[in-house]
């Protein structure tokens, strides 16, 4: 099976919010990890590989089901397609089901999942996405055109800001005129239910580097491109996109055998551009999805996903 290696550069066009889980804190700090940069130990912001993969899975699932006329799924199949499923019992090896799933669902074959009581291994190996900064000089490759290496003079801590948000209790403000009389009277006597909260974010124009290796078929590579094509319609990383966070551009470069980099896919201002290989595998994937939809019993496909008895030819 061919091995494809990609270096991706995300350039933030808006602040990025990707916080560590800390329910006790009013100010949510950026997610950091401890890593080794050459011989130095650093604590650096990192965008989790699990978050990236989860995003691809969501987008790829949407793409797939939209191509199958917005197919509706029962809960178990829905969970498998959108989140990778979970194990329910002692593990078994069901070779024919694994073969069928890898055949009919290149997306699941690529990203893996748990079907009933069987784990289906995915085919990707990746890194977290790290900011291009002084603390990652030995991690980020030195030869990537889209990267502005001037940023390596700065610590990532100089690429962050804090922002406070206020949630006002509108019943205590001018909008209270829209309350009915009884509620307005009651509202006056109550303490305002308001909230002040803050987040730490990465500033716009920060660049994140990410490395991905996939050992997969062309159809599965097409499934990966489909995830990114769907994501290109709303290219946001992290949370709080409703408040204006997370918009970014992406340049994905394919590393070739002689260590040179050739463009594979770019998303600039929400516009997707595919290099010949990316276009070819995506077209192949699209045709494949159409063929399956035209020639396959969808109820059997759903049974396959649910871990029930199924009847399909391979």
């Amino acid at each position, binding site marked *: *099976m061919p091995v494809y290696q990609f270096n991706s550069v995300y350039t933030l066009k808006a602040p990025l919010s990707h916080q560590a*889980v800390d329910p006790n804190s009013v100010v949510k700090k950026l997610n950091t*990890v*401890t*890593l*080794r*940069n050459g011989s130095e*130990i650093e604590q650096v912001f990192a965008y*989790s*590989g*699990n978050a990236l*993969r*989860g995003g691809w899975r*969501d987008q790829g*699932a*949407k793409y797939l*089901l939209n191509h199958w006329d*917005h*197919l*509706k*799924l*029962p*809960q*178990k199949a*829905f*969970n498998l*397609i*959108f*989140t*990778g*499923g*979970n194990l*329910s019992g002692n593990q078994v*090896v069901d*070779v024919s089901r*694994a*073969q069928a799933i*890898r055949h009919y669902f290149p997306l699941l*074959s690529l990203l*893996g999942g748990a079907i009933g009581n*069987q*784990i*289906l*291994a*995915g085919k*990707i*190996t*990746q*890194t*977290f996405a*790290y900011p291009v900064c002084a603390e990652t000089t030995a*991690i980020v490759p030195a030869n990537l055109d889209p990267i502005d290496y001037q940023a390596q003079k700065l610590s990532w801590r100089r690429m962050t800001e804090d922002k406070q948000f206020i949630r006002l209790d509108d019943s205590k403000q001018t909008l209270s005129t829209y309350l009915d009389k009884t509620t307005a009277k009651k509202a006056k006597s109550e303490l305002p239910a308001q909230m002040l909260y803050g987040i730490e974010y990465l500033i716009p124009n920060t660049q994140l580097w990410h*490395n991905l*290796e996939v*050992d997969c078929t062309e159809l599965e590579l097409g499934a990966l491109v489909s995830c990114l094509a769907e994501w290109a319609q709303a290219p946001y990383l992290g949370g709080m996109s409703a408040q204006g966070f997370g918009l970014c551009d992406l340049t994905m470069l394919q590393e070739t055998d002689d260590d040179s980099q050739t463009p594979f896919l770019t998303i600039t201002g929400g516009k997707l551009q595919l290099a010949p290989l990316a276009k070819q595998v995506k077209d192949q994937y699209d045709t494949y999805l159409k063929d399956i939809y035209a020639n396959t019993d969808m109820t059997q496909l759903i049974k396959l996903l649910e871990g029930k008895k199924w009847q399909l030819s391979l």
Partner: protein
Amino acid sequence: MATEPLKITAHLVDGRINSADGLLSFASIIYYAWFKRWYPEKVLGTLKLDDLLIGLPLPKDQHGLYQASVGFYQQYAQTTEYWNSEPDWERGHTYLDKDKGKINPSVGVQRAYHTAETIRVISDPVFYCRGKIKKIPQYLNYVKALGKKGSVGWGRVKSWSVEPIAEDWSLWSPKHGLMRPWPTKYQAELGHDVSDYFVDKTAIKPPSWQHRNQTLCYIPDFIK
């Protein structure tokens, strides 16, 4: 061609591996690579093999144990990181086949997870074995990550280097002492005092998850 003593180094991208016990068995690494090379369908779950003769490019000792050490490294930090999985709240109304009902993220098929993992920040781990210098790199090309969950981003290997060395350090070395888990029942055969080593039940050969491959062993001091 005869085997020779080798020193192998895994050059990590960011020095972070996901491993609870920190033991990185070189025999297990080669075992995985062997399947990736000859029977990738087995790794994918699409092929069932019974009574398979596995021919790893590592010689065995008189007990049938591979002559390969665990990874030795310096550990700079040990942290806990989490990965999350939660129901896809946003798309249920579009792609679920029911018009009503509740999704329970605490139990059942849409259970949410917040899973802790032990992450070690380490130097490039070094392994020792007996093997053929031409063959070992061919297998290592299939190994892209060390430890658990390379698909999430932990343990990514940038490159491997393999070099011949003068002495065989696969079992014992003057620098580190014991080099791989050694069954307590074979203590007398070792010819060294191992009474100070930690004793635990662990795998003596791959696949390490199989109960029949696990026994009480002296554990090497693999963290410098």
